[in-house]
């Protein structure tokens, strides 16, 4: 059962109301209500297989919820297509990096701006001044984004597959940022990072919130990162929300401890 009713929509960038996802007989996400306040960083945690990524995929339109409603920026996006949700202002990264491997870092970030561009098929062929300008603007913006995530010029023209793991993570974030989101979903961004890198990413997320006015939803296993940046933490287990609150509350919640460590004594 949900412990709290869904908060009023006004202050929230995204509201999910009683969302469920059923695959055949498997209930992956069960009746989860959830909200993300504007300009905040909130986290979803939970053991493996708790339904975190499934929930993510519903928010971004890759899965259609079986029941429930998702409202982004006061618009119902429950059954919307992924590209339209991106256009509306939700951007994401993936748990296992999904860059376009044989495109350069720059091209990857340019694809991120697809929804913000207009050139159609005839525009692409005849390339009138309007399209030329758009290409220049998009290229420059892509370079800015790559610099913003800390990638030097030298790296921009390299194929994504040839980049180091950490740089690939950065390109993926740059690609997501390039679409001009108001809400950024990060799916285990620190996976495979050492503590120093994780700490840098934590600072970076705070910078994103403060400088770009973004809201961030984080799925994360690294508790240090989660406790360090989150205003609010939601815990999923077996597809159900078992706890929600600020990091201290969640840490002390016996249900959470049990989900992670099993029943004590």
């Amino acid at each position, binding site marked *: 059962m949900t412990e709290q009713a869904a908060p009023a929509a006004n202050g929230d960038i995204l509201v999910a109301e009683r969302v469920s996802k059923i695959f055949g007989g498997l209930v992956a996400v069960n009746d989860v209500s959830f909200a993300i306040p504007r300009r905040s960083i909130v986290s979803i945690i939970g053991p493996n297989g708790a339904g975190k990524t499934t929930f993510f*995929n519903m928010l*971004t*339109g*890759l*899965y*259609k919820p079986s029941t429930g409603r998702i409202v982004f920026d006061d618009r119902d996006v429950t059954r919307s*297509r*992924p*590209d*339209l949700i*991106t*256009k509306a202002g939700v*951007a*994401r990264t*993936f748990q296992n990096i*999904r*860059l*376009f*491997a*044989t*495109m350069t870092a720059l*091209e990857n970030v*340019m*694809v*991120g*701006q*697809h*929804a*913000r*561009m207009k*050139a*159609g*098929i005839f*525009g*692409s*062929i*005849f*390339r009138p001044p309007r*399209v030329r300008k*758009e*290409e220049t603007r*998009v290229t420059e913006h892509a370079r800015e984004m790559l610099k913003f995530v800390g990638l030097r*010029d*030298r790296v921009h*023209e390299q*194929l994504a*597959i040839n980049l180091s793991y950490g740089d690939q993570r950065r390109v993926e974030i740059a*690609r*997501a940022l390039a*679409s001009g989101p108001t809400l950024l979903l990060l799916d285990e961004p620190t996976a495979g990072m050492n503590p120093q890198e994780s700490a840098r990413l934590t600072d970076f997320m705070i910078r994103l919130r403060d400088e770009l006015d973004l809201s961030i939803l984080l799925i994360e296993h690294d508790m240090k990162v989660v406790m360090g940046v989150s205003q609010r933490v939601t815990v999923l287990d077996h597809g159900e929300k078992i706890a929600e609150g600020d990091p201290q509350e969640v840490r002390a919640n016996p249900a959470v401890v049990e989900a992670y460590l099993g029943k004590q004594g």
Partner: protein
Amino acid sequence: MAVATDKAPTRRYGIALPPWFSRVAAITLIMIAAVLPLFFTQSSNFIDDTTLALAYVVMALGLNVVVGFAGLLDLGYVAFFAIGAYTTGWFSSGFYADANVHVAVSSFQSHLPGIHLNWLFVVVIAMVLCAVAGVIIGLPTLRLRGDYIAIVTLAFGEIVRVFALKGDEVNVAGHPLTAGRQGITPIDGISIAGNQPFNQLDLRPWYWTALVMVLIVLFCNIRLRDSRLGRAWVAIREDEVAAASMGVPLVKTKLLSYATGAAFGGASGAFLGAYLNTVNADQFQFAFSIFILAMIILGGLGSIWGVVLGAVTLSYINYRLIPDVLNDVPQKLGLDFQLSDIGFGIFGFLLVIMMVLRPQGLLPERRRELELEEGIGADDQFVQVQA
């Protein structure tokens, strides 16, 4: 490196080429191609073969948009050859003899019965019809991947062939759709500005027409590759889920690639209909789709110049080398068959050799080269977009 990146030499195949090299090479090649027929007699076999080769280059470049750029394996490409050719058959011959429609044709053609449109109109109509057909073939494949797309498109090609074959019994407003095996013939020679229509005695104008088509389609291909749309196609080829999550509308972008590829195929079909002077059902075999696909695989999937090379190579082998040059080799060796009997066997053999020695094609696209060498894109895609 403090040097601006666009000044840096492009490094490929281990040799550094100066930036102007490819441009100069392209211009030289086009100039040579333009004056080439002047060195041969007006109706020489060489011009005949080369004209066909050029028409096939247009076909292959069209299919390359679908298979090479967007990664959608289309095995029914012959359908667009058929639709393009039939457009020429319908709108520039005496097939519908009781209609008397003449639009901007030469004075000779304007006295013939039937529908006779200026060939430029015919090409435009063919491209539009094919683009529509391309969308129709694309729609049922939208939720499919890889092999399944191939099967659906293959079936589509067969449907169009059967329509062509049995079209003499299909009546549209009292008129047959096609002439079946018999073929619609003769077809008007191309006459663009009211000039004497092209004929089979002087093949040079045909050649130049085909060359102009190749240049236009090349231009379109290059522009598309380096555009918002081209990037979106490659993104879909690389990772559909990520592309959709980055704001690329899958349905629209895929359908655009089908429509674009089909339109180029239709233009080439409209040309071939007129050039071959007949449109009959036996031209539209499944083998044709494979022939074009083999061209782009041989040249290098997705690589524009590779596709041009592959198309020219295979059509020369098919129309020159096998039937004219090497045809009696088996007989000289005491074998009782002609080389042209085993034409497709030879293509198959070539492709196998190619896959073993140089799977990325003759002039590979940089991206594909990586895919084959490093096995990118082979991992499972566990999430599927529910469109």
